[in-house]
């Protein structure tokens, strides 16, 4: 678990550096939604527990990515009104509603 956390953190830093160097800003934004934690977490789970154990994680992640899409769309609306800090934190509710709702309907 600690290894997943460490490598996940490093992967996030790596992808965010690539995004920081990228231009224009919309192109750089692609890296804001990069699968940084997922790559690290799935790779370590596959090594430690076998490939079969990771498939359920990817199914959950597919549901979570619908939440990520909702998050980004809602943050576009909220950032204009409430600025980045408040808008992007409030947009977490959109992720929670969409990912949580879909999980309850499809995933649990």
């Amino acid at each position, binding site marked *: *678990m600690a290894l*997943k*956390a460490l490598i*996940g*953190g*490093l*992967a996030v830093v790596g992808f*965010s*550096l690539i*995004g*920081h*160097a*990228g*231009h224009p*800003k*919309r*192109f*750089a*934004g*692609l890296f*804001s*939604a*990069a*699968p940084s*934690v*997922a*790559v690290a*977490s*799935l*790779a370590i789970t*596959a090594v430690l527990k076998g490939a079969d154990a*990771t498939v*359920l*994680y*990817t*199914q*959950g*992640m*597919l*549901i*979570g*990515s619908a*939440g*990520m*899409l909702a*998050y*980004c*769309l809602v*943050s*576009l609306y909220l*950032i*204009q*009104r409430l*600025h*980045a*800090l408040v808008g*992007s934190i409030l947009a*977490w509710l959109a*992720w929670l509603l969409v990912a949580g709702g879909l*999980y309850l309907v499809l995933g649990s």
Partner: protein
Amino acid sequence: MEGDVLQQDDREPVGFDWSRLASVKPAELGLRFVFGTVIALIAAIAGTAAGPRFGGLFLAFPAVLPATLTLIEKKEGMTKAWADASGGVLGALGLGAFAFTAMLLRWNPVGALLLALVAWAAVSAGLYFLFRVTGLFLRQDRLVSRAGS
């Protein structure tokens, strides 16, 4: 949101300027590292406690975006932060393609993860260039602005 700033930024050629990395402060990287480790830990704990499918949800949680967007707004203004989130919409569709392709893990873990990364890059960048070339970004901007007015 300033339309002229956005249009000017959109006209920049696509690429990477690695010299920009010199302006990144260690504290900013530390903040991202902390958010990254915390969400990876939450995904692992949730997977153990409530099942891997539940834990998998958090592999697509936007943990680092608030920090990223706030830093961009502070340094470059709100329009640039908005543009970054706008790119994130397309990146999120790529993230879905990553998760879908990664389901092939049972077949070949290393191959599936590499293929999933290619799927993320192809879908995200493919959509970006499609939106850029066809003017769909402009339509999206108008739609979001109208929804907010």
